[in-house]
């Protein structure tokens, strides 16, 4: 049984710019799925569909083989299971301190205070930022903000974590550390779906890859095979790994 299945998603931004054009994608549980494609291929648009932020003009999304509902209760249940981390952490952090910001998601789940506290502390520990708990969000470095933003999603204990370019803008060592943290989350049972422009990173880290081109998936399968296949990669406008 697939965890998330998208069928024939079609979406155009206001102004008529097509972003998704009959896209199909199946996400299995317990995988690390990398989504690659040139700029404007529709990667971020897909992530926004996978947690119900955007609603497709055509096509549908299934969670556990059940079509999703876009009403308030449906969206809440959906987002409890599927977390999203935006590319720019500054778009996500709004509370005065790290602890408060990370507590926002669990508070929206209507958990009691002790449970919220426990989840925040666990998420901060998982992201290795327990020492930043009292730090004001505007006094964090770029990499720290990124970790806090991820902790904000992790504290909700989602089954799937959608990450938009998690390593973009990080220096090599910070990127490596973040990937190690994400690997631990995956080992603990979280399915990871992330977009990236870093083909070599995806080759090392992901076990599945999906190539996007003009709003469609043109290849999806084992990362090692797809990302080294020069002809397929070229069709997506990308250079193969290790080149």
């Amino acid at each position, binding site marked *: 049984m697939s965890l998330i299945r998208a069928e024939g998603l079609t979406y155009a931004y206001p102004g008529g710019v097509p972003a998704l054009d009959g896209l199909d994608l199946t996400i299995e549980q317990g995988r690390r799925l990398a989504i690659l494609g040139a700029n404007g291929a529709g990667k971020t648009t897909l992530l926004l569909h996978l947690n119900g932020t955007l609603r497709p003009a055509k096509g549908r999304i299934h969670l556990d083989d059940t079509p999703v509902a876009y009403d308030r209760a449906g969206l809440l249940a959906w987002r409890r299971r599927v977390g999203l981390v935006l590319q720019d952490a500054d*778009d996500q952090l709004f509370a005065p301190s790290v602890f408060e910001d990370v507590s926002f998601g669990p508070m*929206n789940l209507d958990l009691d205070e002790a449970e919220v506290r426990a989840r925040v502390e666990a998420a901060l520990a998982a992201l290795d930022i327990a020492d930043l708990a009292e730090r004001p969000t505007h006094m964090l470095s770029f990499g720290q903000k990124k970790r806090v933003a991820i902790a904000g999603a992790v504290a909700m204990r989602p089954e799937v974590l959608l990450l938009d370019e998690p390593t973009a803008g990080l220096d090599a060592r910070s990127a490596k550390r973040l990937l190690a943290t994400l690997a631990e989350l995956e080992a603990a049972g979280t399915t990871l779906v992330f977009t990236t422009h870093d083909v070599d990173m995806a080759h090392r880290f992901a076990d599945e890859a999906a190539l996007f081109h003009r709003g469609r998936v043109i290849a999806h399968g084992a990362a090692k095979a797809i990302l080294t296949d020069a002809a397929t990669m070229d069709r997506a406008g990308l250079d193969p790994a290790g080149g």
Partner: protein
Amino acid sequence: MTSTIDRIAHSNRWRSRSLVEKSALAFGLLAVSLAFPPWPTAAGVLAVAFAAALAAGVSPGAWVRVMAPPLGFVLTGAATLLVSVGADGIALAPDGLSAAAALTLRASAATAALLLLALTTPATDLVAALARLKVPAEIVELALLVYRFLFVLADTLAAMQAAQEARLGHVGWRRRIRSSGLIAAALLPRAMDRARRLETGLAARGWSGGSLRVLTRRAPVSTAGLSAVAATLLALVLLGMTTR
């Protein structure tokens, strides 16, 4: 300057002390400095406020730098008391010196008292405390969001300015005015974009349009702290009473 206060407020030793203790001390000092003759009570308040700031880990240099701008206003105001304008023109005012000294002393003491609160408590703690004083949640949340995004927008502004300067956009006042206008015009759509993406991020964490609830960690009020505040204020009040 604001960022100096902000930085100190977040990193001082009294940061985690209860807001009740800190505001009791600050407003208590303010009340004492206003209620009694400036000498010697206000001088005592000034000394206590300075000592408290040092105890909180504020460096004397930083304290003086933050005190300087309001003190500038105080001195300008006090200077006008030195002279009197009459039918014969401008003359030195009788008792002008002592009046000016009294005003300077009282105003600096009051400023130092409030500054003690500003230096030891982040603005966000103060705003959050308003919610407990029954200020509507919408107003408090809005203030906190404004505070948060002030820094984000300031970064954007600095980056845009640097980009313009790199392309000689600020050479000469005519170009400077034009470039600044362009920035102001560009900043609004950026802020709107940012707001839209923030909404996406909040919704992804289960927010559905209501109040922005977070779990705040509040420092417990310590009896020892409150007693120390009460003892200090009492000593200053006695000082004021005996010299009245």
